[in-house]
């Protein structure tokens, strides 16, 4: 059994909380002026999807969920599931769409993602930090206002909208940050 001190829990890690594997969505170390420091966490139960929060003393021993990560290529969406393939073994797996959630709009065919496994079940998908997507629709002439570097809203190949600089045209590719959704640069 792998354990850590509660003080070392980090956002994005997996621990066992009351017997169930949970994904840490927020980990806040708090040191009150008086009294002992605590670690306040928010988490999502990876099996039920339910969220919760808890406060540990920083010295408490916490069981780490023993997870495994495998790099796989995204293929296509099948209803409420996403199909990924292991590029080495060609093995295909179905992953619940809910695990990707709002990041679905960044998935394009053959995008390499890390699939997180726990006891033989997929429990999470880590996307690359940024993705490149093609612009398919853009408002014609957006009135350039007086302020420098204004933005316009365009539609991308996956159906999502993004805020990009005015000079971006239909057919061009842009790089977006998959965590914040921000435009990073134009890709030639």
């Amino acid at each position, binding site marked *: 059994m792998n354990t850590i001190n509660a003080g070392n829990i980090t956002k994005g890690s997996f621990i066992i909380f009351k017997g169930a594997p949970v994904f840490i969505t927020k980990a806040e170390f708090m040191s009150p002026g008086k*009294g002992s420091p605590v670690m306040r966490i928010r988490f999502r139960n990876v099996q039920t999807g339910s969220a919760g929060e808890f406060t540990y003393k920083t010295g408490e021993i916490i069981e780490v969920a023993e997870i495994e990560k495998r790099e796989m290529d995204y293929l296509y969406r099948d209803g409420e599931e996403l199909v990924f393939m292991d590029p080495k073994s060609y093995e295909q797996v179905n992953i619940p769409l809910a695990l990707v959630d709002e990041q679905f709009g960044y998935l394009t065919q053959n995008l390499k993602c890390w699939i997180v496994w726990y006891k033989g079940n997929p429990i999470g998908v880590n996307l690359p930090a940024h993705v490149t997507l093609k612009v398919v629709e853009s408002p014609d002439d957006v009135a350039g206002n007086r302020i420098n570097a204004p933005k316009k809203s365009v539609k991308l190949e996956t159906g999502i909208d993004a805020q990009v600089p005015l000079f971006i045209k239909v057919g061009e590719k842009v790089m977006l940050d998959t965590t914040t959704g921000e435009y990073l640069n134009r890709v030639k």
Partner: protein
Amino acid sequence: MRTWQRIKNDPNLINQSLIREKVIDGIRTFFKSGGFREVFTPIMVPVPSIEPNLEVFKTELRTSKGVRRDGYLIMSPEFSIKKLLAAGVGNCFEITRCFRNEEEVSFLHNPEFTMLEWYRVNADYKDIMKDFEHLFLDIIGKDKLEYQGGVYDLSLPWPRIKIADAFKKYAKRDVLEVSDADFYKIFFNEIEPELLKLGKPYFIYDYPISQASLARPCKDPRFAERFEVFLGGVELGNCFSELTDASEQKRRFEADLAERKKLGKTIYPIDTDLIDAIESGLPEVSGIAVGVDRLVMLAGDFSSIGEAQLFPGKELFDL
């Protein structure tokens, strides 16, 4: 992307920093119109404060003649302001930069932050509760705050809850039998979720004496006149009726140092100048420390204090 680049891309973003300007202007106006002096104390001092669970930024001062002195960035201007109070400055406030090391940089913590402290003489912590209520209402400008999807009723008065009552009611425990180590674990897991249901900011007051290093004891000496004020789970301020007994202050500093030693932390000298100041006669006074970045965060509906800063520590130091 750095914040300045983001602003260059979307110049409207600079307007977010106006909220900080407004909050700080609001604080100044509030206290100056109430007859408070604004004081300015050093950010680098020769002796740090020594709370067992806080860590200081250390530096070194060197003169051209080769004299060397330890220097520390303040965690709070409290010690300096108390010396001014002993000198007779009267009601006063300060808005200053403070620093804390070895803390997790999070949505509520940045290594460098802006602190507001104010001190009211011939007053106790209950007077400071009233000051806080009025200051906060002034800053928000209405008696309802919408913050990150929640709505908080700010109408006065805000609930005032004794720590001992909260532990009894929600955790079914006698707070005096709860160790300092377990205190916040119980508070956050069992008590705070109930208090959040109030939908209002609230004051939690009268802490066990072991948790009030600079506060004076209550009539029941097992407790100290200290409060904290919370809104939506965010701690906004920490107040004491200040301890005016120099020898008791010295004992508590020594206890803090003993605790630091037990925890294997660096042992710093005691600020004997502060002990001298208290000994020379400190008026009856109550003071509070308030995180200005957190006020800005609430006033601007930002999800973190970093979002309310132009140079958040996370970005600046690549954390």
